[in-house]
């Protein structure tokens, strides 16, 4: 079974040379730490920066340079700043190659819910609805089950949706799963995790074909 860093490490293998990547808040943010350093990748933050770098050294924080999580950041050579409409032109116009974000629920038809729990304070969707509606390549990073132990990979989402039929791949603490027209297809198992454990933790239809390999991290 993987921890959050393990999930991020596995997703980092999906990041290819030449990709522009948008990382959501939470586990997705950790992915940047594990991307191979022999490939060229630029990270986009929807508040208006491409070519995001690491956090600044203490004393070098600039209130005018932050990411979408409102954290102080730095930029790398080749970086650019732009306005919010242009930022979403990059996203809506499919110029961003890969979007990695967290989720509360994903359904076997690719629906995703990650912004609102009825009865609880709603903070808002931020850029999530624009991202999931437009990106061609969306990977969801999340734990396979919620804190109560219930599956987050469902037949149908129960929470208010963020987007419909948009998720292509899911990486959890237990498995790598592809969303297909037939349902959740099990691609890889996390180290030490059995197919049965994954079946037990998946409410939606899980397709298992032949021998399922263990993840290589």
């Amino acid at each position, binding site marked *: 079974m993987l921890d959050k860093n393990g999930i991020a490490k596995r997703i980092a293998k999906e990041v290819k040379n030449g990709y522009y990547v948008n990382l959501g808040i939470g586990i997705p943010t950790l992915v940047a730490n594990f991307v191979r350093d022999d490939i060229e990748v630029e990270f986009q933050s929807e508040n208006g920066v491409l070519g995001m770098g690491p956090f600044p050294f203490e004393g070098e924080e600039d209130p*005018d340079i932050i990411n979408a999580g409102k*954290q102080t950041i730095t930029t790398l050579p080749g970086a650019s700043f732009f306005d*919010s409409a242009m930022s979403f032109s990059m996203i809506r116009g499919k110029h961003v190659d890969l979007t990695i974000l967290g989720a509360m629920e994903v359904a076997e038809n690719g629906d995703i819910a990650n912004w609102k729990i009825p009865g609880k304070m709603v903070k*808002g969707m931020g850029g999530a609805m624009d991202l999931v*509606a437009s990106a061609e390549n969306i990977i969801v990073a999340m734990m396979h089950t919620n804190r109560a132990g219930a599956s987050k990979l469902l037949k149908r989402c129960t929470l208010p949706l963020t987007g419909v*039929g948009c998720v292509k791949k899911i990486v959890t603490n237990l498995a790598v799963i592809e969303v297909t027209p037939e349902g959740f297809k099990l691609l890889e198992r996390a180290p030490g995790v059995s197919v049965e454990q994954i079946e037990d933790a998946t409410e939606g239809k899980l397709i298992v074909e032949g021998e399922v390999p263990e993840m290589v991290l």
Partner: protein
Amino acid sequence: MINKKVPGVIEALEGVSDNMTLILGGFGLSGIPENSIAQLVKLNVKGLTCISNNAGVDDFGLGLLLQQKQIDKMISSYVGENDEFERQMLSGELEVELIPQGTLAERCRAAQAGFPAFYTPAGYGTEVAEGKEVREFDGKMHVLEYAFKADFGFVKAWKGDTAGNLIFKGTARNFNPNICGAAKITVAEVEELVPAGELDPNQIHIPGIFVQRIFQGALYEKRIEQRTVRQRN
């Protein structure tokens, strides 16, 4: 040169009154029009509809207007980090409309550019699209969203000149350029106001035609919401 300079924040906000719709720049607390917000607090205008990506924190940004119960309705994409906001929202004192961030930016830009409405895929199939016109383009469903209509737009830039030309810095740019020209009157406050001719026309982000009033801002606090640093080895 058409002079857009006004002496200060008092003149810049002349005409702002109760029940108006305002659009304000900023992402979190970065690039917010601090001086204009302070003046709105002083004027104590009520019944406002405020369009802004976020709603500030309890004691800074739009949170200052919320404390005085000046805002009736807030249109934003994300409103966390504000206890007073949460209290007013849950008690029903404050109406809140949450919309996707890209849609918020584009509704500003549409108003600026003279488009009455546009189609976007964002929010299709979710509660955001309820009651809205939808249409299929190239096999994909889209939602019709309308340009904002507002009385005043308040933006913050890094540098500006007396002709109203603006240059922004870093991610403090965010929604500010999209708001210029999106309301009947655009008020720009700048960290450094220079005479027309001193800024390189090649470097202007927003031409002065989109700005009606510009003034030299003062005492910028530029509060950092999430201070994150790394250790030197």
